[in-house]
């Protein structure tokens, strides 16, 4: 199954009731499959007139209390930043999938990881961060959507799923779980009609700075709680490693092969793969660094996640970087060449 199609099945299994989107390559299979499958599952598909409208439709459906999502690719996600900031400020859950392509500007439709800063650091205005999940396989394109909806509802926040063109377009075997379709938890705050209760208001306007500070602190406290409870990563062969590769998504797939090449050559190399980019698994990396490990961060960008790795390591171990940009996917041989220079 293709990654973009797996994502649709995962979303429907997660109880997604509304999808709003606008065509952009390389994620067009998502709205196409959604238009076929979501109405059959009792949900709503609507092709919006723009990404701006799509994210605001998600905002409305989320305010009404249902599980809602959109998907796009880099330039479209830039247009959605206004709505994501409003969702963060209004404490609305929702899922935004970015099948990242090469940038900046119109860029190209090849795989890239150059939207890491935008996703992880909060691409819209204001003092907020969004949880970010990074699949690395078609299976995870399916599975992480459910986690994304659960985290969104649990912490009342928009959640970004950061994929890329390779993950969206490649085909892999996949197991569809037989869990029952998830249901949205009760949302007493939802604006779904004040029937037998006082009115509810969904809003991000707080004129009094002291009041807005309290709201921002409340939202930040939830992110901190998520940092304690939701942070996820996968460590492979790091126990004896002299050098640990750090990579996510397609970068981690390339790095995995490079690690195998290194191991075959007798080099002790491991792989650390963040699954949540936000919250970032900094403590686990810090622990590896305290054992004297060196790191090589591999990205499909000029180096964005590497900054978070360096912050986590705090100078306790050397952190090198290798990346290709503009939609160029580094080859395992290129990464292996870097490894040989470092070990």
């Amino acid at each position, binding site marked *: 199954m293709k990654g973009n199609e797996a994502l649709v099945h995962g979303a429907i299994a997660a109880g997604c009731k509304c999808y709003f989107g606008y065509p952009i390559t390389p994620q067009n299979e998502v709205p196409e499959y959604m238009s076929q499958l979501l109405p059959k599952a009792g949900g709503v598909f609507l092709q919006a007139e723009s990404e*701006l409208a799509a994210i605001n439709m998600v*905002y409305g459906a989320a305010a009404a209390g249902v599980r809602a999502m959109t998907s796009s690719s880099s330039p479209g996600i830039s247009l959605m930043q206004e709505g994501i900031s409003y969702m963060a400020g209004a404490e609305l859950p929702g899922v935004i999938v970015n099948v990242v392509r090469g940038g900046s500007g119109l860029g190209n439709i090849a795989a890239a990881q150059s939207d890491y800063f935008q996703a992880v650091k909060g691409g819209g205005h204001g003092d907020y961060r969004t949880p970010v999940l990074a699949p690395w396989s078609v299976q995870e394109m399916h599975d992480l959507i459910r986690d994304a909806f659960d985290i969104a509802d649990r912490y009342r926040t928009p959640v970004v799923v950061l994929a890329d063109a390779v993950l969206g377009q490649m085909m892999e075997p996949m197991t569809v779980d037989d869990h029952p379709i998830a249901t949205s938890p009760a949302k007493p705050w939802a*604006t779904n009609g004040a029937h037998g209760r006082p009115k509810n208001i969904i809003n991000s306007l707080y004129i009094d700075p002291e009041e807005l500070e309290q709201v921002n602190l409340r939202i930040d406290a939830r992110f901190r709680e998520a940092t304690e409870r939701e942070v996820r990563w996968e460590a492979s062969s790091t126990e004896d490693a002299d050098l640990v590769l750090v990579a996510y998504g397609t970068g981690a797939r390339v790095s995995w092969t490079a690690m195998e090449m290194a191991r075959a050559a007798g080099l002790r190399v491991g792989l650390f793969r963040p699954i949540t980019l936000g919250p970032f698994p900094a403590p686990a990396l810090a622990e590896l660094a305290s054992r004297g490990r060196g790191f090589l961060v591999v990205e499909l960008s000029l180096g964005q996640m590497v900054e978070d790795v360096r912050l986590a390591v705090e100078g306790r171990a050397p952190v090198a970087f290798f990346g290709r940009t503009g939609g160029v996917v580094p080859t395992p041989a290129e990464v292996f060449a870097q490894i040989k220079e470092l070990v």
Partner: protein
Amino acid sequence: MSESLTEVFAPPESLAAGPMRYCPGCTHGIIHRLVAEVIDELGVRERTVGISPVGCAVFAYDYFEFDVIEAAHGRAPAVATGVKRALPGSFVFTYQGDGDLAAIGTGEIVHAAARGEQISVVFVNNAIFGMTGGQMAPTTLVGQETTTTPGGRNVREAGNPLRVCELLATLDGPSYLARVTVTSPAHVRKAKQALRKSFECQVKGQGFSLVEILSTCPSRWHLLPIDAMAWLEKNMIPHYPLGEFVSRCE
């Protein structure tokens, strides 16, 4: 004694108690009241979701006594679409000013109308950006002075004002489009009739409707309230004729 008295007039249940923070002579208060009265009369308060705009009516959620969502500038029709699609049984309306609806939100309003989205739109046109201090709006009249058209709106530089009802009337989607005003009791009654038609249109599942209400902004027009009413009638109505532009609701 109270047992012998009959209540003949009361504030609408859909209107919250307490003062509104609009300027003296501003017609938002009248329009809020009409919206609340019609919602009460249709008996839909408990399934109403209002969408408030960015602009002077941003605090509408304080003044109405039903669920309200505050939307980003111009995006109210998209937010309303999300609510209505998620909850088809709800009554959803947007309350938008001219900057919100006719400048930054033109894409959203045109496409909601073209889709025949099952929502109602209350469009308050006062020909100026009120909240931000009196800048030119898309509906500012030619020659009208604002803080960003200090010599009066000049067509060659600032373009022409937008007639929203006439524009939307070219589409097949809308079921009801009307322009009214609230400068006199007679006009207020007609405005309420238009709102009632619009809201009934949605309740009956008959599609998209919009009521444009020509409104005053005495503070930004630098006029006394009574003079603002006269200015509206003299200058706005000739450019924005009143009446029904589309009426396809039964």
